[in-house]
């Protein structure tokens, strides 16, 4: 069974298509990396997979059914899009981490939040730090944790390690590997050449289409 099946999927908000007639199967459990130049439509593709955008023609099946069969809110909790430059919107780290709990009408257990921070090499005292003072790498890790408290089935990762230092990259790749081993399907996009050698399954997006579409 495939997580996603794209059939003649086109996204053309204006006359020129950003993504053009894409046919693609993404199997469950895969750790897939999609490479492409800046502006090639990688973010757009992930937003389409996350139902934050809708194809202008063609279809995307998720778990065998059209996206439109699902309630978008529940769908996005299963297929979680991690943005390229994540917005933190709380006053403190705790406020930001609490959001997934708040929208499910539950309390955030403090120990769980502290453990999550430590799992990505952040001090648990950071919980009460103002988000304004965080570095880029710290922000990205806090933002990622927010997507993991209630594990999704698919993580869509939009250049989540771009521009970070090698140590932070390693911590994040480690975190993501652990998620994939737990059975979470990963679809990452990047334009960073140095990331590509680690890719387990690699595809390239050029001019709105995939160059090679053979997946393990």
């Amino acid at each position, binding site marked *: 069974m495939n997580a996603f099946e794209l059939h003649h999927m086109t996204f053309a908000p204006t006359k020129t298509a950003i993504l053009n007639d894409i046919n693609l199967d993404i199997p469950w459990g895969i750790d897939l990396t999609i490479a492409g130049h800046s502006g090639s439509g990688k973010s757009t593709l992930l937003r389409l997979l996350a139902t934050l955008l809708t194809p202008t023609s063609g279809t995307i099946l998720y778990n065998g059914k059209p996206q439109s069969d699902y309630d978008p809110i529940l769908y996005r909790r299963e297929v*979680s899009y991690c*943005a390229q*430059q994540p917005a933190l919107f709380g006053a403190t780290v705790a406020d930001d981490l609490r959001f997934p709990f708040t929208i499910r009408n539950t309390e955030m257990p403090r120990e769980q939040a502290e453990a999550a921070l430590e799992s990505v090499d952040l001090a648990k005292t950071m919980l009460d730090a103002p988000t304004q003072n965080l570095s880029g790498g710290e922000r990205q890790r806090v933002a990622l944790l*927010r997507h993991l408290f209630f594990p999704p089935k698919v993580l869509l990762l939009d250049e989540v390690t771009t521009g970070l230092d090698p140590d932070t990259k390693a911590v994040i790749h480690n975190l993501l590997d652990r998620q994939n081993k737990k059975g979470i399907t990963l679809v990452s996009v990047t334009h960073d050449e140095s990331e590509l050698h680690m890719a387990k399954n690699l595809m390239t997006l050029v001019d709105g289409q995939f160059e090679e579409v053979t997946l393990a």
Partner: protein
Amino acid sequence: MNSQLIVSPLALLLALILVVIALAINLKEALGMTQDLIVGVVRAVIQLTVVGFVLTYIIKVNTVWLTLAMVAIIIFNAAWNAKKRAGTIPDAFVTSLLAVTTATGLTLIMLVSVRAIRFIPAQIVPISGMIASNVMVATGLAYRSLNTEFTDLRPQVLERLALGANLKQASQKLIVNAIKTGMAPTIDSAKTVGLVSLPGMMSGLIFAGIDPTKAIMYQIMVTFMLLGATSLGSFIAVYRSYPRFYNDQKQLR
């Protein structure tokens, strides 16, 4: 009673000098508002003259339907003007009409039923005008706040949607800020009433020779009613408008 304020036509003409001052400053500083200023003055004179005659007539005949018709016109105009501040928010006229009608209507019903005012045109019409114009300003500000925040905070909203928030949760801060923005002028003026401004109605009553204590009690009532009406109006306008920033697939437009 000869303390009553009577403006003679001659005095009015002399007061026109004040407008000339405004014009002179405008020309000297090249503010580019000369035309607006002249249009404003001419409109004020015409509108007030017409309304003066209309009000005199309505107060004299004192019929329910004519009073209600006047209130309806006031509400319609207020809603129309509020809508102009809504930019591209869809359906803003209906929303404004709903907000102004509910806020004005409920406040009037409250005031009449506790006998704070009587159902006579001389009281209903000016009070409606006061409420409707404040609600108009409040909803207009609330719309503007929604528009700027949905632009400025777009990444935040997207992030919350991506985390599986529903539309209300995704818009939470923006809703609060818009309602706050709508109510801010009324709250500010409630704080400074009597210290900075002596509001028109109270000044009018005192001018007209009414015991200042009574005028003040009226003003307290007005302050309460404006607080209630503007919060209700902003609330309605914001809650009906924020979902319009999303499409049927619960995506940001």
